[in-house]
């Protein structure tokens, strides 16, 4: 039982990332009809927003410490962050420590901006082209973005830890009456899970309870009619692309303390997120979220040593296996709408 709960918890944080990326993908597909293979790159760019702010806050000047020597035997140059000079050592360290949550504020406008430029600059020229063309151009864009990031940040992962207050883990098992060490769960993964719920809730509320959201939903249902009513639906869809980019970016920012980011992390998530979208049902936002969590949890269960020893390799194919079963039994996915990608 404790292992069961443990793997559900593990699946939830993995599922959170899948759900957030798939949500953005579905928003773009549902509004603009574009299959965006650069969405993983947006997730990665979000992560690098956190890396950049963390590096920016750690910008230092050097002072020579005559009492110590460097590896060549010269007096050692010690880095002193500017924030130490400006705010004092304790406050400066606290600011650097909270770099990742602070990046959220910084990442939202940047990611919306990137999304806006991406849509206006490139993707809008491919609306009337076949899906294969859209996939090729967005995939190409993803590779270009990756290489740019690698050029500036290198190929190695860059450690960007969570604030000290959220480091480490807690014994969830003891809280619910199991033995000590039975269910250990890191604080930050819990933060990530709740953060994803907040973002998902905010996106749904935005679409459900605002006039803007209502128009967008109407546009998703029947773009032509909404256009005929004199509403500039294209502009709203462009903004939705920006919002989808921001959702992927925020998912990336908060993911940084879980695993150190590198330039190809987006690709690792992209394929799985597409499977999530297809399983959830093309164009269905609740489907994308539900499938994200479902596949995250299934992946966790398939990675247990019991599963791997009884069904070798199951951990690597489980998601695709489930996708095949769902598509055979429910060809439109879990919550797919009739008519999407069927014309």
């Amino acid at each position: 039982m404790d292992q069961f709960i443990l793997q559900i918890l593990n699946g939830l944080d993995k599922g959170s990332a899948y759900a957030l990326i798939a949500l953005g993908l579905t928003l773009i597909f549902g509004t603009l009809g574009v299959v965006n293979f650069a969405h993983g790159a947006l997730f990665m760019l979000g992560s690098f927003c956190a890396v950049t702010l963390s590096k920016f806050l750690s910008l230092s000047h050097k002072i020579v410490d005559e009492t110590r020597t460097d590896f060549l035997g010269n007096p050692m140059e010690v880095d002193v962050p500017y924030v130490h000079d400006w705010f004092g050592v304790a406050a400066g360290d606290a600011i650097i420590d909270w770099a990742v949550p602070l990046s959220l504020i910084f990442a939202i406008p940047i990611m919306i901006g990137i999304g806006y430029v991406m849509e206006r600059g490139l993707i809008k020229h491919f609306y009337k082209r076949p899906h294969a063309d859209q996939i090729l151009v967005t995939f190409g864009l993803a590779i270009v973005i990756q290489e740019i990031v690698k050029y500036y940040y290198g190929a190695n992962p860059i450690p960007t830890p969570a604030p000290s207050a959220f480091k480490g883990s807690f014994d969830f098992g003891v809280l619910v009456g199991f033995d000590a060490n039975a269910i250990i769960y890191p604080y930050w993964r819990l933060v990530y899970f709740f953060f994803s719920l907040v973002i998902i809730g905010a996106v749904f509320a935005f679409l459900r309870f605002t006039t803007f959201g209502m128009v967008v939903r109407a546009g998703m249902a029947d773009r032509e009619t909404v256009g005929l009513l004199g509403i500039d639906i294209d502009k709203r869809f462009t903004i939705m692309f920006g919002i989808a980019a921001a959702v992927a970016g925020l998912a990336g920012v908060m993911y940084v303390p879980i695993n150190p980011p590198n330039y190809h992390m987006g690709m690792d998530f992209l394929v799985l997120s597409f499977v999530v979208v297809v399983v959830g049902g093309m164009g269905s936002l609740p489907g994308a979220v539900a499938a994200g969590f479902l596949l995250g949890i299934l992946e966790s269960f398939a990675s247990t040593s019991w599963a791997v020893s009884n069904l070798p390799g199951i951990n690597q194919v489980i998601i695709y296996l489930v996708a095949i079963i769902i598509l055979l039994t429910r060809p439109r996915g879990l919550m797919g709408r009739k008519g999407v990608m069927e014309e």
Partner: protein
Amino acid sequence: MSKSNFSRRGVLKTGAIAGAGLALPTYLRADSHTGFTNAPGASEVVLGFNVPQTGPYADEGADELRAYELAVEHLNGGGDGGMLSTFSSKVLDGTGILGREVKYVTGDTQTKSDAARASARSMIEKDGAIMITGGSSSGVAVAVQALCQEAGVIFMAGLTHSNDTTGKDKRANGFRHFFNSYMSGAALAPVLAAQYGTDRKAYHLTADYNWGYTTEEAVRSSTEALGWETVNAVKTPLTQTDFSSYIAPVLNSGADVLVLNHYGGNMVNSLTNAVQFGLRQAQANGKQFEIVVPLYSELMARGAGENIAGILGSQNWDWKLENEKGARYSGTNAFVKSFGEKYGFPPSQAAHTTYVQTLLYADAVTRAGSFNPCAVVEALEGFEFDGLGSGPTLYRADDHQCFKDVVVVRGKENPENEFDLVEIVEVTPVDQVTYDPEHPQFAGGALGTCNPGA
């Protein structure tokens, strides 16, 4: 009246034969009179540096390339000479190799066997490289080594730690200076027993490919011989990015040590996840829970940041060796000085092994008095040397593996900078890591005979 000797048939025949000759790959016909592939001209010789310049190991490749450039500079008489002054063999005098200026070409392995073979082939066929060196994975090393054997050039392996490179996949034209999985296990086990006791239960997470298997086997057999028990060993996909599902059950498995047979990005993420899940603070079986990473890469360890604190592992070499362990490791400081002054930071073990391999090749050619691969093989086989940073070393003739001391390191609790992440715990003497050429972990395969090509 003169009578022409040309017949239509004769011209066509001659043309076809000449055309076929010209169309042959360069390496098959080049300088056939010398009897070996890519024999250099009188003024220069070309070496091929095949390193990952793109892909996840690009930073390691960049450090390898820095070391190669430094080695070429020193061989050609530039800079401060680096290890040329400490090397026990004194035939290299800064005039290139056998009086020829050393030039080099580079290829990008992308850490993919196919790409690595293609770039090595291109350097051999198009650029006339007489020796190929580099790489940062065993898959690449084994693939390129086999290619060099077929093509008739020498392969001086870079970063490759799998037993198979000088085990079942060994080749007469291939040589490895870097240590291997067996040596890591043999060096680590006594230190693990001394630090953590002999009554320990280990849980292995192993990258699901060749290097992972040989490392798990080596560490398991070495630690089990000292009394440890292995409670579980789980293979993890090479493409895995989040290891939480594999890490989470560890604490409740009865194990009190986690061995991460992971390298590169896998290691960074699995170690980060293990620390996140509180394994470093946990108690199991009444003991402090411990994590072990058999093969350390200082460059990749930077990615794991503070999570490496207190974690034991092994290295081929460390830039602090001579300062901390004395003159046995002479050459280390000379290399660190040249490298540090040129690039501004200390060299990694990747840089060290590739620099040394280049010098060893140049030295072997000079001692042999020939670039012929078979003469080079003969000069390197059984060659004993010193002064290249790792203490007295033997290039064993049976399998073309270098035998030297192995460094056991631990992640520093409070590193001063990103180049000073580990501290040396112990240097395991070469005798303890030497094995029989017929050892089961290296069984199968044959060295064969050297191929001079042409």
